[in-house]
């Protein structure tokens, strides 16, 4: 596939260059009559037609990209607010593409239609208040709509509150891995600060051992979330900036050393359900075909893949930034509680050392 693409691009470029040289030669013939570096009739004609061809190219590239690549776009959101996000995104795209198609058409068509010809007279047309008013007021109205809609959604998403008994989870970032901490039975996180980190006692998050809220905290390397329950994330970093990016949930917040940032969402699709979605099944098949190819060639990174939600680092953080990840598993509330009860508490791990 890669080879086909590469070859087709090279062929297209070769054709383009061949056409160029033709133009070049043609204009050389003309050049005998007008030996100048200023565009003549022939140049205007050739480049005028190329402008039109370029419009076709832009359209074809757009169609090609959507046809080949739109299946790569992230699947439907797996969080409660994600639906609103996706709708707003869809409408923004509709508006963008309408404007794009019209303006590119006008621009390149005019460049073609009004290409210079000897004796052609341009129209002295310096001003038209009505026209300018129209194309000022239309963006104003459209953008006002988008701003209001966007701000309404933004305010909803970013309103991190304690209503509906949210699950409290700390996401802890460091070069180059993630740790999660649950509040435990009391659903309250114990105080923590990097100054209380004690590697010898495996207190890697610097949880205050004297804070009773922290004793039942549960520290894990795999993020489990219950379906249908709001999760409030308290996000920390111990060294540099990181960003907790959970693309399938339309969620992202930076991790800032020295402060606790917050994000909140409600997962709505379990990992198991997600794996059953047709688009995910297809994606996994496509990916595993690539990986099987690699396995056949004896290359690394070739184990079959099973879909999982993932938390990525999305703020440059150093050498292994590209591999700072944590698996996210969304499951039913019963499964989640079951899993949580099997994890050791902070008091247990510290005492154990």
């Amino acid at each position, binding site marked *: 596939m*890669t080879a086909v*693409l*590469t070859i087709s*691009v090279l062929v297209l470029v070769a054709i383009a*260059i061949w056409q160029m040289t033709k133009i070049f030669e043609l204009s050389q013939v003309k050049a005998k009559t007008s030996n100048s*570096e*200023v*565009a003549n009739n022939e*140049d*205007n004609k050739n*480049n*005028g037609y190329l*402008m039109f061809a370029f419009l076709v*190219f832009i359209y074809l*590239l757009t169609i090609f990209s959507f046809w080949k*690549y739109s299946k*790569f*776009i992230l699947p439907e959101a797996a969080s409660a607010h994600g639906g609103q*996000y996706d709708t*707003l995104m869809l409408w*923004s795209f509709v508006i963008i593409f309408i404007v*794009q198609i019209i*303006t*590119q058409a006008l*621009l390149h068509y*005019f460049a073609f239609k*009004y290409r*210079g*010809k000897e004796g052609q007279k*341009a*129209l*002295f*047309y*310096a*001003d038209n208040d009505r026209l*300018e008013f129209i*194309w000022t007021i239309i963006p104003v109205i459209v*953008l006002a709509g988008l*701003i209001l809609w*966007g*701000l309404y959604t*933004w305010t909803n998403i970013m309103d991190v509150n304690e209503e509906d008994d949210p699950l409290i989870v700390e996401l802890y970032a460091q*070069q180059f891995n993630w740790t999660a901490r649950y509040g435990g039975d009391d659903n309250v996180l114990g105080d923590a600060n990097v*100054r209380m980190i004690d590697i010898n006692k495996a207190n890697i998050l*610097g949880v205050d051992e004297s804070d009773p809220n922290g004793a039942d905290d549960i520290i894990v390397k795999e993020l489990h979330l219950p379906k249908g329950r709001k999760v409030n994330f308290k996000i920390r970093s111990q*060294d*540099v900036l990181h*960003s907790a990016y959970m*693309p399938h949930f*339309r969620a992202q917040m*930076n991790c*800032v050393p020295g402060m606790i940032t917050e994000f909140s969402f409600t997962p709505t699709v379990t990992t198991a359900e997600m794996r059953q979605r047709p688009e995910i099944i297809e994606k996994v098949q496509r990916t595993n075909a690539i990986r099987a190819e690699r396995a056949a060639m004896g290359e690394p*990174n070739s184990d079959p893949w099973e879909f999982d939600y993932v938390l*990525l680092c*999305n703020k*440059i953080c150093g*050498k292994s*930034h*590209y*591999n700072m990840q944590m698996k996210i598993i969304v499951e039913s509330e019963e499964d989640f509680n079951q899993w949580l009860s099997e994890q050791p508490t902070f008091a247990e791990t510290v005492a154990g050392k």
Partner: protein
Amino acid sequence: MSAHAHAVADDHAHDHGHHHKETFITKYIFSQDHKMISKQYLITGLIMGFIGIAMSLLFRMQLAWPGESFPIFEALLGKWAPDGVMDADIYLALVTIHGTIMVFFVLTAGLSGTFSNLLIPLQIGARDMASGFLNMLSYWMFFLSSVIMVISLFVEAGPAAAGWTIYPPLSALPMAQPGSGAGMTLWLVSMAIFIASSLLGSLNYIVTVLNLRTKGMSMTRLPLTIWAFFVTAIIGVISFPVLLSAALLLIMDRSFGTSFFLSDIFIQGEVLHYQGGSPVLFEHLFWFLGHPEVYIVILPAMGIVSEVMSVNARKPIFGYRAMIASILAIAFLSTIVWGHHMFVSGMNPFLGSVFTFTTLLIAIPSAVKAFNWITTLWKGNLQLNPGMLFSIGMVSTFITGGLTGIILGDSTLDINVHDTYFVVAHFHLVMGISALYGLFAGVYHWFPKMFQGRMMSKNLGYVHFWITAVGSYGVFFPMHFIGMAGVPRRYYENTAFPMFDELVDIQVLMTVFAIITAAAQLVFVYNFIRSIFYGKRGPQNPWGATTLEWTTPQEHFHGNWAGAIPEVHRWPYDYSKTYENGEYILEGQDFVPQTMPLQDGEEELQH
């Protein structure tokens, strides 16, 4: 005021009417002549651009063929590419320095520095900048900062690698990454000098435009190029000092143990003493410059495009006053939108709302400009010279790239595309490619003015434009899809995530386009160098333009006009103007130079 300036300028003329005894050094090296300084800016900028683009090819190859061994990596990166496989640290360094060089050294100094210097005196009718000495100083400080930036590539632990935005703590702690040692120190020193250079230049541009306009050259008779350079200089003066303070505070944190941007850090097994600083503060300071900076990059390109497009369309620019108003509106808004880079930085979400509002507002003047350019083409007699093609190309990429700004500027939608390749695609189209097109348009158009009437080969120009136009879209259009697949930027390779496996084909496609497009720039380099020495000499006013620079003789001398400075009688866009009976104002000529007084029976229609 103009009359007074004129008198002063006339006095000044006596100093320069006679030729100084010029040595090689005063003419070519420590020149105070704005035309020579502009060429120095251009050539330094192009060399830096060559380095920056070459770097992008290296990391594009790594993205398309992750972990593959290339002899070229070993040759160019040495110990950073053992056995020809690129190291992850140097990948980040390449990305960082590519960004820094392209944004500051090519598109700020190379674009604005070149054309502000060349065109401000020539188009307003001045003998030189207000201060030739400061102008010279500005260039040499820029040169020094370029040299320091290039030197930083060779330090032992590697150059700065924290991204061009150099967010602390990553950029502040050598333990966090090797590039944050001597490499980052040199980066900061280089940028501090660059900022000083930029300020000297900008102040000079502002003073020159305000004070040295020739008689009759009112502000509303200025070509749009000058308006753009003037306003660019103003936002530079407003915002660059803030970056300087951010850089100084970062230097303090790095070297003197202060805690402006750092707090509560545990790294490599120990707690650092920093307490009470905030990385978010740095982000505010950085983007207070950083956002206006992208307009510092694009406004000169807009000005150049407006001028080149009008000349070659043989039509006045549509909506001259609206164009000025939109430049001013963009400049004003550009200083109050910086927070849109920080929607998910942890700052108060309410602040995010305000920045969404101001950011989407900026789409309005941008839309007005795009529509006005399109209307300028309507019913024109388009002379499709290479400069004109790049101008049309700039409008095309500006629209394509600008539209996705509506998504990124919306705080809600930014959540999931923030820092992904969607952003990379957006800003490369809207400010990278568009500003480069503006630069190329300017070079093709004003090359005869820079190099004693010699012109660049149009046919090579056509080859250059069409390959670049196709290639740029080929690189950056598919990139949006990578972003919407959730791929974060600044990833050394995407192989750690099976969900990104199937994107490799797109990566290869983009890299192939990138290599072809970069190769096309060699056509430009060849054309540029060849034309300096062997380019055909055109007429004094090859494009039939109305503006003052084409009234100067082709031969360069300090002072621009041999006799008195010409007086201006009309705006700069009297192309294809006719009497009511349809005859051109000047018989047999479809333009009226600014120096031509109003003719009998002619109406001053436009403003």
